């Protein structure tokens, strides 16, 4: 087990290096560069730099050196924890991403809690009453929910709720009057943010319940077919005890693994849900960075997404490995 763990950990390192190379090539291949994008975004009336000045700036920013040299500079700085300065914000990219991650986490973490709160009872009950009306109803409903992307559900919910219930704001994270005037108290600020979180959290929950409840159902069904459940049933235990005390406890193992695997995705979130609700998280910032050609931000963000994805895969291997006796034996 230990060898498996270390082996997987070592495999991650070359993988991450190849990924950094791919990221760098993609960003380098984008037409235009951040310097030109920045000059174009200067406010009207401000003097534009001359051609010579631009050339000089290109030299200072090392845009005239070959790409592998710049890759080497970038990667060695990144290893030291320096991911460059965002030309748009004029602050270190890492600093900005650091605040954005928590906004995204706030949304997705809350949604995860609600998702499991709803999905576990649905999944367990579906499994306990296989092929009943309840089971068929929810297996069809969850299939529909899985089919639809989260942002579609978001569009429906936004139109349904935000338009008719004026108390629920449709977009953003803070109300405009408060942004201008400032919050009167800390509790007003928290309440305002919670109000803005309602719709995106609801969307992510509805979208997540489909996948998770199916997963829970299959996990419980796998357990129910075991001999010890038959034994428990033939001992004369009630259906309730068999399902909740014997079956569900064993099915919890894969369910907990699923939570573990989902943790890295909480920091990444769903780009399109953030785009629909204009939630100022990491996904929306990624879209803005693409349009702004903010190279420092872009490379850091894609690197972060990749890292989360690699970590998620690693956790999946480890967590499913921990509970897989065949791997233990090796």
């Amino acid at each position: 087990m230990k060898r498996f763990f270390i082996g997987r950990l070592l495999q991650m390192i070359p993988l991450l290096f190849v990924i950094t190379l791919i990221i760098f090539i993609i960003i380098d291949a984008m037409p235009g560069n951040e310097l030109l994008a920045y000059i174009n975004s200067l406010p009207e009336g401000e003097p534009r730099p001359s051609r010579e000045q631009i050339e000089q700036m290109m030299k200072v920013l090392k845009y005239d050196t070959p790409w592998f040299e710049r890759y080497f500079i970038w990667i060695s700085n990144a290893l030291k924890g320096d991911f460059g300065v965002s030309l748009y914000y004029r602050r270190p990219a890492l600093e900005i991403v650091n605040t954005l991650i928590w906004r995204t986490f706030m949304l997705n973490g809350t949604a995860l809690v609600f998702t499991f709160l709803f999905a576990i009872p649905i999944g367990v009950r579906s499994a306990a009453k296989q092929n009943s009306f309840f089971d068929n109803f929810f297996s069809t409903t969850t299939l529909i929910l899985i089919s639809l992307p989260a942002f579609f559900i978001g569009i429906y919910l936004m139109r349904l709720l935000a338009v008719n219930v004026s108390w629920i704001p449709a977009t953003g994270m803070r109300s405009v009057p408060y942004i201008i005037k400032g919050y009167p108290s800390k509790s007003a600020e928290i309440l305002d943010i919670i109000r803005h979180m309602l719709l995106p959290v609801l969307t992510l929950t509805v979208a997540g319940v489909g996948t998770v409840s199916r997963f829970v159902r299959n996990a419980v069904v796998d357990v129910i077919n075991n001999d010890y459940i038959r034994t428990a049933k033939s001992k004369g235990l009630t259906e309730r005890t068999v399902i909740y005390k014997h079956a569900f406890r064993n099915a919890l193992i894969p369910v907990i693994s699923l939570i573990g695997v989902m943790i890295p995705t909480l920091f990444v979130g769903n780009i399109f849900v953030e785009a629909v609700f204009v939630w100022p998280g990491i996904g929306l910032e990624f879209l803005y960075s693409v349009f702004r050609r903010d190279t420092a931000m872009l490379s850091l963000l894609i690197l972060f997404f990749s890292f989360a994805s690699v970590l998620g895969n690693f956790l999946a291997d480890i967590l499913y490995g921990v509970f897989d006796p065949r791997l233990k034996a090796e």
Partner: protein
Amino acid sequence: MKKQNSMGPWVMALKRFKKNKIALIGAFFLLVVILATLLVPVFSPHPLTDINVVMRYKAPQISHPFGTDQFGQDLFTRVMYGGRLSLILSAFSAVITITIGTLIGALSGYFGGWLDQLLMRLTELVHVLPLIPVLIAFTAIFNMGLPPLERMIVTMGIYGFLNFPSLARLVRGQIMVHKKSEFMNAADLLGLSKTSKIFRHLMPNIFGVIIASSAGIIANALLIELMLSFVGLGFPPPTPTWGNLIPNIRSSGISAYYWMWFFPVTLISLTVISINLMGEGLRLALDPKEEGR
């Protein structure tokens, strides 16, 4: 006594599929949508380029079942026309995914050894790349140089490629299971050629798995086109696609005109749901072990 007819696996699968009412409904709806996207633009009395200012923002009525948009264009015609392009683009992307996924999975599973190692490392690399951010970054690369149609073809092609790992792993697993089975031993003993063993004996056994997963692949490709358009990286108007027919939902301009978003979004949702319901039905029909799960 009546002669007992033996049934082939495909006939049995078809029988099982026919029993699945929900999957049949999905298949039927999908057929209707495909026919509509092919026929409506041809027979519609409202040409695609027809702009009619008097008919702006008209609510659904008999001559305009989905209402009209800000240019007075018939939304029904536009939605159907857009569906044609979107469905073709996603089918194209799915073909790429299925070809690459099957090829890599089959080679990897059949030959094993260093080739398996190499291909699986490649699969793992593509698998861990964050799909949507990388795709958006790629789209941004081609955003300027190419005309829209070619850009979309390239984008969907890249998506098709980036999407191959899960199918490749599935096919590899299936090949490895079947490789050790008795009929493959028999094929070995008969001294059949490698091509014959792979294509005549091994592949037919995994076609079911590939067909069942292709539904999901097409549905996802369809959604990718929508998402890219939603954030402004898809096919630009005036050519309608399902992606750019979903207007910017936040703009206050359309809140009074519910048909502008409701009909496109609902039709697309129903199409995607039907594809998935059909895919689920196919999966259950082609893999009898899954029954009752």
